[in-house]
């Protein structure tokens, strides 16, 4: 039985509309990358996000995810960021 940790997932703009929720708390296996969490834990719960998924950038704890990706930690905040349009 793999150890589970708890992360917070936040949704914005089009992602929030499609998911019909602003944020959730989500159990995921430890040793999960942000992209794995998206594909294996978030998407199955929110299939309506599929059309948007190729345009989403991820952020962890308010920082854009860059390579190499570290594993998510207990209490991390994972953000689904659709294309931005500020300014």
């Amino acid at each position, binding site marked *: 039985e793999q150890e589970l940790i708890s992360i917070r997932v*936040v949704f914005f703009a089009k992602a929030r509309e499609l998911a019909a929720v602003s944020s959730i708390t989500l159990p995921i296996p430890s040793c999960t990358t942000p992209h794995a969490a998206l594909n294996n834990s978030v998407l199955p719960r929110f299939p309506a996000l599929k059309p948007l998924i190729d345009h989403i950038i991820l952020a962890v704890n308010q920082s854009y995810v860059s390579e190499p990706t570290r594993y998510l930690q207990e209490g991390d905040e994972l953000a689904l960021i659709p294309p931005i*349009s500020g300014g």
Partner: protein
Amino acid sequence: MADEDNVIVLTEEPLSVDSAMAAVSRDCAGGVSLFVGTTRDNFEGKTVVRLEYEAYHSMAIKEMRSLCDTARSKWPQITAIAIMHRLGVVPVREASVIIAVSSPHRIDAIEACHSLIDELKARVPIWKKEVYQQGSQWKANKEFKV
């Protein structure tokens, strides 16, 4: 350099060029460059009724602070920076964003201000929904890259 020399605002209240100007005015500054993004009444033949903005508040603040740091490392003579972004409904003609930069000589203020609006559009997690007479649409900045 103190926090009051980097003024960052996210608000649902109307923005004011005078307050942006006041935020960056300094005795030692000779030039202030400002950019104001306003709600335009049309997009590709459709009439825009209003814009609606939302932000990932904590990350937007963080990214805007980072933009200030980057600008200051590229233009060390900058005396002050203000970045103000409006959230919620922004009617036609009103300001959604104001950037102001002051420096002793104008070239630094002008270049930094121009860079800051470009970088804001590329990096800061704020989203705009364009509301037309018929329908609406989430926009995407072509500058968004990361």
